């Protein structure tokens, strides 16, 4: 595996053993960024540093973190920092590694964010399955309290912060920030109307920053080493490093921290050791189930926010799933639909009913009973969903099906070949009634 990074910014545990141990973490300059901020910086300076460093949200949408923080009104209290550790996108498993292996980095990032926006309480919301992940994280929190990095009057600065862990019940939609807030409040995990945006009325209707685990873990490096040091990595509009969760038909699936802008080919071939049995890449799902599928010919696309959009897809949360020739394109699309059908929260009609309908059609096709009309039906259904859903989950359904139809139409047609559209059985009405 080639080394494109002199050191890991986030996956520091891969450079230094036992960094989950607070003493080790401190020895590696851990909590120095927090000390620096509390001693030398005003809250607004922290926000401005993050803004200038160009750190973008790693949860999917890529929204600039510093800009988000600056939306928090100054004069309303209390405010909250909520950490999105729901990590439910198929193929994403990066936040988990951070929390298990380098938890203090996240805690330090949270503390910096809370200091910047004036929050004194923070909740880390994890997916229901993260029981074993949250144990070491809780240990880290306890250690941080003991060392005075959390709790009352941190390092004598007058700034106080409490962090609490909360496990959801395991629902993809609870990764969507407003559904997450509902769930955290004990309500049903369904998204809220916007406006108001969480920055104005979030948790308990108070100003709330919501950031992904990886986003916040990127903050300490910026504060400690400065904007230029951070911008050494990545591209101008996509600075810094990003963790890519590589899975699918590759030899070495796993998490890889790379500077943004690294070519996809590097991730697949160098990091992932290429496709199993040397087969050809047939498709790339660069952001999990919600992806626009990219053809195997797109391996030279650069992994940054802009290039991925240009290539007709998006960077998302960086969960790169590789399909090879052994994978049937229709089958893969059906897997995604099964997932969405299962995870649709049911709030709005197009997604609740549309995902179910899609699943019915896919099942029919994959079971070998589909017809050409059924394939056309898929296009119609996503057309009827597009733009009409309450939240992005429903909208995420569309690109996968659309690109799959575009890339793998021959496979669809093959599957339905020979099946005639059954003509409507003629009901003999007279016979029925008399």
């Amino acid at each position, binding site marked *: 595996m080639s080394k494109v990074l002199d050191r890991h910014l986030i996956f520091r545990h891969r450079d230094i053993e036992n960094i989950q141990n607070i003493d080790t973490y401190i020895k590696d300059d851990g909590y120095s960024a927090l000390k620096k901020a509390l001693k030398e910086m005003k809250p607004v300076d922290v926000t401005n540093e993050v803004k200038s460093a160009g750190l973008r949200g790693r949860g999917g949408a890529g929204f600039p973190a510093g800009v988000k923080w600056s939306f928090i009104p100054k004069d309303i209290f209390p405010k909250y920092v909520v950490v999105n550790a729901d990590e439910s996108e198929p193929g994403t498993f990066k936040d988990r590694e951070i929390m298990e292996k380098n938890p203090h980095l996240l805690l330090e990032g949270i503390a910096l964010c809370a200091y910047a926006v004036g929050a004194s309480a923070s909740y880390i919301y994890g997916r229901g399955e993260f029981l074993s992940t949250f144990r070491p994280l809780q240990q880290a929190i306890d250690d941080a309290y003991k060392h005075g990095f959390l709790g009352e009057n941190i390092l004598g600065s007058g700034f106080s912060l409490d962090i609490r862990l909360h496990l959801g019940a395991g*629902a993809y*939609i609870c990764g969507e920030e407003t559904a997450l807030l509902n769930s955290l409040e004990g309500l*049903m*995990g369904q998204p809220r*109307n916007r406006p108001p945006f969480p920055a104005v009325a979030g948790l308990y209707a108070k100003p709330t920053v919501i950031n992904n685990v990886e986003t916040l873990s990127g903050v300490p490096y910026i504060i400690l080493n400065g904007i230029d040091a951070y911008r050494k990595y990545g591209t101008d509009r996509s600075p810094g490093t990003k963790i890519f969760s590589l899975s699918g038909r590759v030899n070495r699936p796993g998490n890889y921290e790379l500077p943004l802008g690294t070519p996809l080919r590097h991730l697949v071939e160098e990091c992932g050791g290429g496709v199993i049995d040397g087969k050809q890449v047939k498709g790339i799902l660069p952001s999990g189930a919600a992806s626009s599928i990219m053809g195997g010919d797109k391996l030279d696309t650069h992994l940054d926010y802009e290039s991925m959009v240009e290539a007709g897809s998006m960077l998302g949360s960086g969960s790169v799933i590789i399909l090879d020739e052994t994978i049937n394109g229709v089958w893969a699309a059906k897997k995604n639909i099964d997932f969405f*059908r*299962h*995870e*649709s*929260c*049911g*709030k*709005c*009609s*197009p997604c*609740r*009913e*549309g*995902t*179910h*309908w899609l699943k*019915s*059609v896919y*099942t*029919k096709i994959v079971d070998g009973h589909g017809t050409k009309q059924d394939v056309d*039906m898929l296009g*119609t259904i996503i*057309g*009827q*969903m597009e*733009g*009409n*859903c*309450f939240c992005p989950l429903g909208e995420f359904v569309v690109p996968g099906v659309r690109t799959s139809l575009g890339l793998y139409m021959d496979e669809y047609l093959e599957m339905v070949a020979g099946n005639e559209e059954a003509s409507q059985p003629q009901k003999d009405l007279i016979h029925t009634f008399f």
Partner: protein
Amino acid sequence: MSDQVTLTIDGKTVTVPKGTLIVEAAKQIEQEIPVFCYHGKLSQVGMCRMCLVEVGTPMFDRATREPVLDENGVQKIGFFPKPMTACTTPVSEGMVVKVDSGAALDDRKAVLEFLLTSHPLDCPVCDKGGECPLQDLTMKHGSGISRFNYEEKQHFPKKYPLGDLIVLDMERCVICTRCIRFQSEIAHDPVLAIENRGRHAHIVSYSDPPFDSHYSGNATDVCPVGALTTKDFRFGARSWEMKNVPSICNHCGVGCNTVLGTRKGGSGTGQLKRVMPRQNETVNELWICDKGRFGHHFNESPNRLTTPLIRQDGQLVESTWADVLPFIGEKISSIKSANGSTALGGIAGARLSNEDLYLFQKLFRQIIGSNNIDHRVGLNANFEDTTAYTVGVGVGTDLSQVGKGSTILVIGSDLDQEAPILYIRVAGASVKRSAHVINIGGRRTKLDAQAQTSAYYQYGTASYLVLGILASVVAQGLVNQEWIDRHATGFSEITKLLQDFAPDSVADTTGVSSAEIEAIAKSYAEAENGIIIFGHEAGNDPALGAAIEALAAVTGHAGKPNNGVIAVLPHANSRGAADMGVVPNRLLGYLPLEGEAGLSAEQMLSGNSIKGMIIAGADPASESDTYRECLQNLDFLVVQDLFLTETAQLADVVLPAKAVAERDGTFTNLERRVQTFDVGIDSPLLAWSDWLILAAIAGQLGADWGYASADGVMAEITQEVPLYQNMAFENLVAPVSLDRQTDHYIYEGMSFTADVHEGIQWATVAENEQQKITLQLVVPENHTGSDEITLVTPRILYDGGRLLAETDVVQSHVFQTRALLSSVDAKKLGLNNGDSVTISQNGTAVNLPIQISRMLNEGTILIPRNIEGRPAERLVGSSDVHASVKVKKS
């Protein structure tokens, strides 16, 4: 910036207040935007996606903030890339909305198609069929064919009881959450929720007992499909077969406007199939309570009186009007000549109409010559409310508009039980519109959860508390002197008396601290609008009414809309009975009586001077043994009623009366609004309206009244009672169209339209520049605190009343005879739920099982009134509200 916004919807320009939602703006130009989840009275959720429209706003250059112009110099409109939900998007200046554009029409069709992929389309057997938004919108916007032929539609149980009254057919549900939101936002009984997600989502009730709410029927009304139906009406009739008749609920004094859905059956007699709300924003908005909706089965009860009965050889036997009427005439005449007219007396229940009550007093005062008449039996026997006459809520009062800047003082009433729709309105004023609601009572009630302030007094001290508030208003200099000068006399006299009632001095007696009293006084006096609502748990001490009247007057909270006093009286027409002068001590229209006052019901039924009585629509025998004995000893008793009540069983002649649904007439509600009801169904063959019976009796006594209709009686009332001068039927009844209108019910639900007259309120003294209110205070009865336990006897919605007893579906809600005891007392006495206790007072003792209640304070035990066996009345007497009792384990 102007408060008005102008926008264009499908080419039509409309100007609406800022903040208006697109869907509402469109309604104003009669551009229908279809909705399912949106409902004007509920929060907006934007989840069904039916209302998607294209929305554009005028374009501005980002940098310069200058308008971007097209080649013709007109500002360009930038359309949002996605359609917007018209139910959540507020209008903005210059906005352009496309409702019937190709894209919006496609979206609508798409959403409908999605909804129908899991909808059973069993319209032919669905109760909503014919008045169903989903059905109508599918016809209008849907595609004619179904492309969802992949598998079975979803299956859920077709008949799932959400509670005892409401049945859920989850297959029909479109998951709009209107029902859930109604329950939590309007009824404040958040008992419904969605369980599971995606297509497995379904509606559940998680209260115990399930769907525990007095308002559950309204959830079926807001449901835009046939998913929620009432057990009562399920498969009862098709909507188009029914004739809809406007009526007024006869179960409490709120006077909710209703529609009787009636159908001609095989035999030709009209059947009452359902009672539905009729929109009247000033009375009941779109709602009725479950008692009003379900409590109509008494009409068709086989126990109804169908023919006159006469006592022969000790037995009541069937007779005819022709035989009984002359007999009644003879008996009354002979008692009058033997014992004088004061040996005759009458009680008329406050469920009778104004026309009945008017003739009742006319019969006694003019024909018989006796002032021995009363409508107050039992609970309110000693209580006469005249605050309505002087300082009742102003004409034009509309609680649905009362909000920020207003204070509503509720004193001694559990509104959720006594006047449910009033509860909804008061709670809504607080929660939705930020009025300051102050709930004062002897115990915790449901309204406490919505009120901003609560205070608890010792039972029996409410009048002290109100005097304390009044004294504090004066002491804090918060009186409205200008108002007093214009409308009242006697202010300086009352201030003297008030010196004894300073907050400090009443704090100990009442148990409410002087700080609380002062804060209440301040909030009420300083409010822009002030309303006082008081109920029977405040006691029936005459000092109370006088103090409340003075409090409203000195703060100037009377004589104008959204200000004044509402007394929560017990029956549908208690107000009208007082207006019609069915009291022994004054005449109709609150005019003074010259000469000696007659006997009250209480006096008539506990002495022996009365020899003959007419009792119409009242059952005093069931209230107390003393009354019963007295009635047994009468020489002659005539009873007119729907049923052979305990009182009727003692009568010499029993006359069958018509029920409200079977006749016309008027009721006057708590807010003095006179409202008419129409004939909905046929009555038992020989039943007559009460007014007709009374006129016939008068005829036997030589009168020649010649009324042909209730209408004619009202015509005379308008002449005789100045307050009622505008109440002729033609004024009260405006052209009524009760035809179903899709554009109404897709937005508002199943309540019938407001296209009807809203009743007329009569004006109070405070609204009359020619009259002045004489302020007077009464020194309250001495209050002696007791170390014993206080028994309180509130009225409840589901009591053992006769009219409810005939409705099977609510029987499981009817209060099972038991006593509620605070957990502290239960612990002290070593009692558990279900243990039996002996409760005794002055030699009377009753045994009851107990239930431990968290709602009660230490030292109180609660037994509702009017329940099986009448334990409450036996212990406290039928007219009192509370008493000191001894409680021990039995």
